[in-house]
């Protein structure tokens, strides 16, 4: 965000398009656009952790699960206002994220990835173990079902707030500390960055984002939370979304979120393979292409285009 004016301009363009969309899209496409908004929040959160702080997580689906179940259970048992449940999901996931961040102090790279992987694998089984409270395989149904427009407005409002918050957080001292950790932990410590504080904080913030996304995700699934929704594939999708997004660009995160949010719908209409294996094939092919052509994600592409334009 060095060049403030073009950044502000693109922000306004996106905001304007988002405001107009509900008036021109069909009801179902509003729902799809809402899915993109939901993953915008999650990918943005993961970006803070992976992109800015350099800590890999293949377990963000687990935080989405925790956020989603928080909303579903509170709505089922206490008919809590859905926005309140989202804030609750945010708070719970922030705390859980801090705790999960602890191993990050000792592990790094692949080993940290494995720890978070374990999280992604194990969390969906908790509801099966405590089936009276968390519904077991039968899931938890929240007391309210929201309309497509509701979820669209909620998802993109959350996206806007998340984006603004991330920008405010990262442009200052915190962002500098995160980037220092990513580039060299030793140098960061030498410059006075307290690793334990900032690493766990990065996990906490990122998990809180995922929690809100999970809450929205469950609301978009007719308010129904079930272990099958939060499989390991969800975590991988988020990671790929973050990779596609690249670092710190609104356009990149939009692209990553659109890829993750629209993939299941779009890929099933690919001819021949679409019906059975479309999602897996398109997913795999897209990952290879993006990594080959855009190693820095869409953010890298945008930067390159800017350089070209200036040249």
């Amino acid at each position: 965000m060095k060049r403030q004016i073009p950044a502000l301009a693109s922000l306004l363009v996106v905001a304007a398009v988002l405001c107009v969309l509900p008036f021109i899209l069909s009801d179902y496409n509003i729902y799809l656009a809402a899915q993109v908004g939901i993953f915008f929040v999650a990918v943005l959160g993961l970006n803070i952790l992976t992109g800015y702080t350099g800590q890999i997580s293949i377990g963000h689906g687990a935080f989405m699960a925790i956020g989603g179940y928080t909303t579903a259970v509170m709505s089922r048992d206490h008919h809590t206002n859905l926005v309140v449940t989202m804030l609750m999901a945010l708070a719970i996931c922030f705390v859980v994220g801090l705790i999960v961040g602890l191993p990050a102090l000792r592990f790094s790279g692949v080993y940290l990835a494995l720890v978070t992987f374990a999280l992604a694998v194990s969390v969906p089984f908790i509801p099966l173990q405590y089936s009276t409270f968390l519904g077991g395989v039968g899931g938890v149904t929240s007391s309210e079902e929201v309309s497509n427009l509701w979820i669209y407005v909620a998802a993109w409002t959350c996206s806007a707030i998340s984006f603004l918050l991330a920008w405010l957080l990262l442009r200052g001292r915190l962002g500098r500390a995160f980037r220092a950790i990513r580039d060299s932990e030793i140098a960061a410590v030498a410059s006075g960055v307290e690793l334990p504080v900032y690493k766990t904080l990065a996990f906490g913030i990122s998990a809180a984002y995922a929690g809100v996304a999970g809450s929205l995700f469950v609301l978009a699934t007719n308010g129904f939370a079930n272990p099958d929704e939060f499989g390991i594939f969800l975590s991988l999708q988020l990671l790929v979304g973050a990779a596609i997004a690249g670092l710190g660009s609104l356009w990149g995160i939009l692209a990553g979120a659109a890829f993750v949010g629209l993939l299941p719908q779009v890929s099933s209409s690919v001819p021949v393979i679409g019906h059975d294996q479309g999602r897996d094939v398109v997913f795999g092919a897209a990952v290879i292409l993006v990594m080959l052509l855009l190693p820095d994600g869409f953010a890298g592409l945008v930067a390159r285009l800017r350089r070209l334009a200036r040249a």
Partner: protein
Amino acid sequence: MQVNRRKLGALVCVLLATAAVAGGAAASHAGKTPGVSKHQILIGGTFPYSGPAALYKTIPTAEQAYYAYVNAKGGVHGRKIKDLAVNDEYNPAETVPAVKKLVEQNHVFAIVGSLGTAPGLATWKYLNTRHVPQVLLATGDAYWGKCVHRACPGAGSTSPKPWTMGWQPDYPGEARLYAKYILKHKPNAKIGVLYQDDAFGKNYLNGLKSGLGSHKSQIVDAQAYSVTDSGAVVGSHVVHIATSGADAFVIFATPSAAIAALATEGQIPNWHPLTINSNVAANPVFMRIAAKNGANPNGVLSTTYLSSATTQGDLPGMKLAKTIIHKYAPALDQQFASGDSNLVYGLAVGWTFVDGLRHAGKNPTRKSLMHALRTLNEKNNPFIYPGMSVKTSKKRNFPMQQLIFIKWSGGGTGDFHATGKVLNSGH
């Protein structure tokens, strides 16, 4: 296709692209009833074509083969049935967008035959508030029949679900028949149960207990396994049951765990209990795999409500089934010949839907379809077991309530053979 390329090639423009799609998406509503046009009836459903439950993907193919057969004979009241079966990977988070698309974008007449309990629960409130029929669901949980006229808070349903119905016999009813069988043929049996640790397994276990009544203390060991446990873990539960002294072994498991359990049982020396394997895993194809891995399949008991393509190949219904599969889904010929009961299941459900549609009148509405399906009286569904019927009424919301015992003989190349009379598994 153009849409795809745009979205994949230039993800940056995706929101604008979506807007462009929206223009074309204002699909034509023909007539008053969604999905019913002059020459076509459009229906939809969600199935696991890939993912953990992909074993069931032959079901929608068989259903579509049956519709193709009916269409070739002129359709129903002059309308051809078109079935948009969608892959949801058995994941409710994918079922919901898929069903929304079917209802809001494709404007289907009804959701027919969708597979799975969780996918069903994730969409039943949505479909019921919109008065979209959600019918002939491929799951044996009792929700679909119990919650028609009253709320089922336990299943997250705070209002009745009159637009939802199942098809196959429910699990507790089936388990009660096993209890009766044990009490009759082995009254002093010590019973060991292996069950899946979820709603499916527990429904079965509770049915068995209620069937045993005052004899339920005869259950000497009940072992729960988790759906993701490896074969070795399942096997260790079986060994536990064997050491408890059980001489009747009841398996309430999904296919892969049931195969592991049977294989372990066959390898434990001097243990030859009366073995019962629920109909969920009683596909001859699975039994042969178990035998290859060391199981002794002879004498294994189960139940069925479908005709068998292998042992009852001479029945007119099975001959018809063979012709339909051969003509409209030739890739599944081999599968059919090996006795895959999922194919017969799909044909039978297709038959019931067409039957309901015929009785829904010349100009069917969603309401008239529900009425027809709530007053079914099928004695001649050619694909279900001879002598059984598919029936519904105001008081009867479970369409199928009959089962017959089947017993395996012939070892690794053998098959199930029916034994005894058609029994009532009803409520």
